[in-house]
Structure formats: C-alpha cells, structure tokens
C-alpha cells in the first residue's frame, strides 16, 4: 500500500487523508518483513475501515500480529470517546473475552521427567473440547446468572489468589444477565469448562529462558519450571451475544445516521440504549469466559493432583489471566474512552492500580502464545503502551496462511510425528484440526514480540517452550 508512511523504527501510518471516510490515521506496529506479510491480505484496508467509526480517537491501531479478519482486522485496537462514540460488537469479535491464563507448577521439567506423557494425557481427559451432557459443567439458571454477574468468584471453592491474579479480577462492571438472550444462555449452559476448537488449547510448557529476572521473580517464574497455558473464551454464549447484537445494531444504523464501509462494523453510540445493552451483555459474556478459564484451570489442577499428587496441585499458582477480545471503558489522556481490543492484550505499565499488588512494581503480565509447537512469551506492560496504543500490546503470533493452505502443506499425522520427534506430547481430536494449526501457518512469534519490545509497548520477561499440547 503505497500511502504508508514510516513514522519511526517500528511504526507505519496511513494518514487520515488516505481515504475520504477516515476520521483518524491507521497505524501499524511492525518491522519490514512483518509489514510485507501484512500487505499480503486485506488487513490494512480493514484497519482503514475501522478508522471511519464515529467517535474514534487517536488512530486505528494494529499490532504486528495483525491479519485479515471479518470487519475489524485481528490484532486491532479502536478507542472511541465516550459518551457518544460508538461501541461495535464486531470490534470485540464473536469469542468475547477469548484470552489466556498461565499456571505455574512447583516443579521443574527435570522433576516432571517421565510423568510428562501421563500428565498431558490426564489433562486431555479432564478438559473437553466441546460441551455436552457429560462434559461441560451444567449450570442451573441461578448459577448461570451468578456467573454472568460475578465471573469466577461465583464458582464454589474458587481460590482468592486466582481471582486476584486475573485481569479486572475476572469481573467486568455493569454485566447484566437480562441483556443476554435465552439462546446465548442455552448455548453456554453446558459449555462451562470446555475449550472449544480452532486455535484453542491447553499447553504444558517449560520456562526455557528468563529474560527479565526481577519481573520473573515477581511472577513466580524461574528457568526450567513447568507451566500450563490455557487458551479459550466464552464459547457458544459469547458467539451468540455477538451475533445477537451485530444483527440488532445492523438494523439501527439509519436511526443513528451511521454510514459504514462494512456491515460487520455495525455499531451504535455507547450512550444509546442499544449500545448500553450490548456493553452489559458483553460484560456478562466476558465474566462467563473468565469463569470458563477458571473451570478449565481447576480441571487442570485436578489432573495435576491425580498424576503428581495433591500437594503439587495445591501449590500450582495462577500467574495471571488476560483477555484479548474485549471492549473496556478506560481513561487515556484525560478522556473516557471505550477501548476495543480485538486480538490485542491490555498491557498496563508498572504503577497502575489495575495491576495486582505483587506485580505493581514490574508491570502487568501479558502472555503471547506462539503457534503450536513453538515458543510462547511472558511479557510485562511498559509505559509507552499508554502513550502509543491505549495501554495495549499484541496477542499472539498471528496467522499468515489460511487453514486450507496449511492442510495442503502438511497432514495432521505427519505434524504429530514431527512434534513427537521433538519430545512434544500431542493430544488432538482431529488430524485435520492439527494440520490447520501447523506452526508455519503463523508468523514468527519471536519476531512479533521483538517489535512490541522495540516499540516500547511491552518487554520480554520469559520464553516458554512446549512439552505437550492438548488441542480443542
């Protein structure tokens, strides 16, 4: 895209004049190689579409893991000024509060030794991909209401330190179960504690390298330590909430005199009755997602207890849990804004009172899962994120190949053999699904993370490598 202007080492911009309908510039964090990949699909055009949203401030921002999505690109950030800037359900996505949670076990890879395969196997037996009568944790109407309102703290026996070490303590304000449709409730009721499919997973890992010792100490991580990373979201409940409100807002555009280049960007003023209702439903779905990852984490602890003993399960600590598909009301530069993060992670710097006390001196933990079989990173938020990206960093490696293209290049069983030859234990219900998530279908996560570090959005704390993968 020829209009791209390089602002500095890691930032490119499409100026507001690039298109008549843009209200703010479209800005991308990248390096030259990543930028070339980004220009290979329609992600930048989609970012320009986001820059047309009424009330958007600063810039429509893309992280280096950006790729083409539907409506909003994946890896995009849009902040709209309140009260009358818009909220767009598509700017959060169907998997509301898809996110990642990291657990740290009190033992090293050497101590785990030959119990690795048994542990991966037990985790795969304990965490189902899909819901159903025998798999999801069935909820009564009243229990579901509590989960939608309160998130993980509504679950019986939940640990206080888990709740404390969760973004927003696992509860978004303003959640209203009444804004969640009966269909969404029906889809969610049997799915609590299930992973879903696609790129969702539970991964057994090892801390390969500590890059920032003080932060790693604060997060309770050391070299060689075994960790578990959980990647899932709000399941059918969130999908239905997004579907319901995209459909509703699509019918209200004329009423609010909103013109959009893409119907999937359907939106309404955040102060309107429809906008407020969506935010209340989205918050409820986000709380459901946190409760879902909590239930999965509890099931993982159960598996750890059965294979490694109850003491090891009890001493397995939650490092943190971050959302990477959500809209939140925050204050930036003295303005109240609704920050849409779609495939992007909040990354507040040291000193923020949004960060749990044990981490406040080092910055908010952020987890960046790489593609299956490659490294993942623990990052910490940095001050420039507040100035440059509404306190946000990337969320993953970012896809570069379609699922079909991935399947054409490798078969599931070949990939399984290749991963197993490297000592990685693999459990997946579908060979096809395995091939679709092949490492080469994603960008190089090391490269993506180096860009956000050079840009000053977040710094690397630890690099994790997989020991076993349980795919949804």
């Amino acid at each position: 895209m020829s209009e791209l202007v390089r602002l500095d080492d890691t930032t490119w911009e499409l100026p507001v004049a690039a298109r008549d309908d843009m209200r703010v510039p479209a800005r991308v964090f990248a390096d030259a190689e990543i930028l070339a990949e980004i220009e290979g699909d329609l992600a930048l055009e989609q970012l320009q579409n986001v820059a047309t949203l009424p009330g958007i401030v600063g810039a429509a921002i893309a992280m280096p893991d950006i790729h083409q999505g539907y409506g909003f690109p994946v890896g995009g950030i849009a902040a709209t000024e309140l009260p009358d800037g818009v909220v767009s359900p598509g700017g959060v996505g169907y998997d509301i509060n898809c996110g990642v949670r990291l657990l740290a076990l009190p033992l090293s890879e050497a101590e785990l030794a030959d119990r690795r395969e048994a542990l991966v196997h037990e985790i795969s037996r304990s965490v189902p991909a899909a819901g159903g009568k025998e798999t999801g944790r069935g909820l009564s109407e009243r229990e579901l209401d509590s989960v939608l309102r309160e998130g993980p703290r509504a679950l019986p026996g939940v640990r206080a330190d888990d709740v404390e070490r969760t973004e927003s303590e696992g509860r978004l304000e303003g959640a209203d179960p009444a804004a969640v449709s009966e269909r969404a409730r029906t889809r969610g009721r049997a799915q609590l504690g299930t992973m879903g499919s696609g790129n969702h997973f539970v991964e057994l890992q090892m801390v390969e390298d500590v890059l920032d010792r003080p932060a790693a100490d604060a997060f309770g991580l050391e070299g060689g330590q075994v960790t578990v990373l959980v990647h899932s979201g709000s399941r059918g409940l969130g999908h239905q909430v997004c579907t319901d409100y995209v459909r509703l807002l699509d019918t209200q555009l004329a009423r609010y005199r909103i013109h959009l280049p893409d119907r999937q960007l359907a939106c309404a003023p955040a102060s309107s009755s429809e906008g407020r209702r969506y935010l209340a439903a989205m918050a409820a779905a986000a709380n459901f997602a946190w409760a879902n990852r909590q239930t999965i984490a509890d099931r993982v602890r159960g598996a750890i207890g059965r294979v490694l003993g109850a003491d090891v399960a009890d001493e397995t600590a939650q490092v943190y849990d971050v959302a990477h598909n959500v809209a939140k009301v925050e204050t930036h530069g003295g303005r109240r804004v609704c920050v849409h993060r779609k495939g992007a992670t909040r990354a507040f710097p040291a000193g923020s009172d949004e960060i749990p006390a044990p981490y406040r001196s080092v910055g908010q933990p952020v987890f960046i899962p790489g593609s299956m079989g490659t490294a993942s990173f623990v990052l910490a938020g940095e001050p420039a994120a507040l100035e440059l990206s509404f306190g946000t960093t990337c969320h993953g490696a970012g896809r570069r190949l379609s699922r079909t293209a991935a399947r054409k290049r490798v078969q599931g069983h070949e990939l399984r053999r290749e991963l197993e030859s490297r000592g990685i234990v693999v459990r997946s219900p579908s060979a096809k699904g395995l091939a679709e998530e092949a490492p080469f279908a994603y960008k190089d996560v090391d490269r993506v993370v180096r860009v956000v570090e050079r840009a000053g959005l977040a710094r690397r704390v630890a690099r994790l490598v997989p020991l076993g993968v349980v795919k949804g």
Partner: protein
Amino acid sequence: MYRFVDHTAELEVELEAETAQGVLLEGLRALAELLGPAEGEVVERAVELSAGDLPALLAAWLDELLYLADVERLVPVHADLVLAGSHLTGVVQARAGEPRPLVKAVTLHRLRLRQENGGWRGRVVLDV
C-alpha cells in the same frame, strides 16, 4: 452449488442456485459439510425467520442451523422452505451426531444474496 474460499483466518462460502430458496439450501449443504458426518435418526425442526433484507435472512438462516448444531448436536440434511420477501418458514430435517465445533458464527462481512444473470448468488463469511 457451493464453494469455499479460504481467507487467512475466516472461511468464505459462495452459493449459487436458480432461486433464492435454492441458495439457502446450498448454504445448508455447505454448513453440513463443515459440521461433518452424522449417523443418527432424522428428526425435524420447524423454522420461522425474518430479517430486514434478503442477505440478512441468509445469515439468520445459517445462524439457525448453527444453533441446532451447537445445542441439539444436529447436522442438517435437507429443508423444505417457503420464502416470502425476507420472511422464511419451513422444516429442517437433520441427523443427530457429534458436529465438529469449527464454525463459531455467521458474520455480515461481504454478505450478499441477490439475483444475477438469471440465477441467484449468495456469499457469506464464517468465523472459524
């Protein structure tokens, strides 16, 4: 006729038939392929849907089938549909099974359903 066009992270489905109802049935077949085989008994479910326009009805129709797959574990086989404007009534025949939970949702991105060259064409992008 239906055809999948794969994007970086989403799946686009192109649909073609002689009538608008035919496009909806092609959408059913495309979705059934994505949900995978089902061997259970055939059951029937009544549907009644309205939308602001025909493309939105196509999205609502596929939403309905996705809901049946997610909640009742049903894979659609066929449907008898009556279309009046953008109001749809009919009966879906489906088999019980273990549908693959691949498709999350039906988006409005690049959504289309219209008459072209004497036939009808539809297009829908699925979040997978």
